[in-house]
């Protein structure tokens, strides 16, 4: 029996979809069977980030309303043989097209087949949020080190506490700029975690490659040397129960040959 995890944030644009795609891909790379569910109905883009947008035949609303069977609607990601699937959102209807019970039914049908069901929640705390949370066992609250995102995360954690899931929500801090955090102009990780009062699942550094890779439909975790990808891989390992230390904020000193050569000139 797999676990259903909703990825939510309250605020839009903090990287829920990117996080869903990357954690899902990272888990698939670890050999887990993963199904990604896009619940951002009307504005779907998890499929685009994964590069699967051209293969959608049916969507979640078709399944909920009985126009298609669940296996028909699932889109398989061929890069990971049988590991990664996507249940796409509908585009031509709105969030009220689904009811929480329908979502729960679909999630319950998926859970025995997969190790993880990751639910990509839409922004906001209305019907779409309620739908996304209804079937989940656990939640990942995504925020960025900005006051508005942290406030919204606080609101969402409050809502999740009022209707508790099986597991307590965990925090993922996205888009961390090392230099800004180092010089203190960005909210500190400890500060955010302490304020929200929930367990920290991971931190992801801001990286240009996140944008370029998602434009190419290939999640950043697939790049082995990318710090953002590394962050997502660490998150996936922590979800699997491993103990992985947080990545260091301090940028590592460049000790390459040319750096040493140039440092000679700086010395004087």
């Amino acid at each position, binding site marked *: 029996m797999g676990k259903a995890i909703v990825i939510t944030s309250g605020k839009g644009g903090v990287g829920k979809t990117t996080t869903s795609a990357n954690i899902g891909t990272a888990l698939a790379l670890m050999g887990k069977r993963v199904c990604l569910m896009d619940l951002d109905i009307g504005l779907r883009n998890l499929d685009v980030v994964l590069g699967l947008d051209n293969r959608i035949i049916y969507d979640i609303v078709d399944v909920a309303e009985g126009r298609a069977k669940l296996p028909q609607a699932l889109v398989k990601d061929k890069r990971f043989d049988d590991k990664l699937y996507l249940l796409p959102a509908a585009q031509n209807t709105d969030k009220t097209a689904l009811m929480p019970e329908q979502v729960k039914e679909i999630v319950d049908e998926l859970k025995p087949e997969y190790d993880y069901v990751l639910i990509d929640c839409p922004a906001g705390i209305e019907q779409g949020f309620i739908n996304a949370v209804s079937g989940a066992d656990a939640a990942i609250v995504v925020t960025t080190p900005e006051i508005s995102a942290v*406030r*919204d995360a*606080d*609101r969402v954690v*409050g*809502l999740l506490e*009022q209707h508790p899931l099986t597991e307590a929500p965990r925090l993922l801090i996205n888009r961390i700029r090392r230099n800004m955090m180092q010089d203190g102009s960005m909210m500190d990780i400890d500060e955010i975690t302490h*304020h929200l009062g929930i367990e920290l699942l991971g931190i992801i550094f801001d990286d240009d490659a996140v944008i370029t890779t998602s434009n190419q439909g290939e999640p950043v975790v697939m790049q082995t040397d990318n710090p953002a990808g590394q962050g997502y891989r660490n998150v996936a390992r922590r979800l699997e129960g491993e103990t992985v230390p947080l990545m260091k904020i301090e940028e590592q000193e460049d000790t390459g040959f040319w750096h040493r050569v140039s440092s000679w000139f700086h010395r004087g």
Partner: protein
Amino acid sequence: MQAAVLRGTQNGYDLVLKQSASLDQILVDLKALLENLKVDPQALAASKISLDVLTEDRILTAEEKSRIEQMVAQYPRFEIHKIAANVMTIADAIQLRERENVHLLSKVIRNGQEVVMKGDVLFLGTIHEGGKLRTTGNIFSMGDVAGILQAGYPDDESKLIMGNLQTAQQVRIAEQFDIIEPETVTDSQQTVAYVNDLHVLSYGKLAQLKKINPKLYNQIGGI
């Protein structure tokens, strides 16, 4: 034995309705009593007589009360000041306890959440920005408050808010509110927010409590 007895006290007249008698019996006796007094020449001397109706350990329903009131209303010399019993319903008692007790509250009130309480609250938790704690009584805060505190809801301006209020967003007492500016409120656990005689929310120190609210000061044992 008479089911309705008139008793003179220092403060006036008590009309005692015996708890052992039925209401019908009481009404019969009450009528006889009032008829007697109507013709009693001695009683004529006094002007209008105000009665405190005591029902002993019996709680009258609204309908029963109105039957007694109607009966007394037939005699213009008498009027009912109040109807009182020695007992109260459990629901009323619970409400009273709610109102009189200091409630401990130790939780995190997050952005968008509102916790509504009755009576005085000793707050030991955390209020995040955008969270709100509201009560009918006083608030004694020992927690971290970055949200809104409201005491004396909805209209009791005699209530106070004590504790460190510097980091709060707003303080409200009854209908008065103040947006906290760091300059106006010091970083101190000793701050008292209250509504002054001009109905303006202002701040003082715990040491001035006697002056700010003598009633509460006496109640908590100050001399």
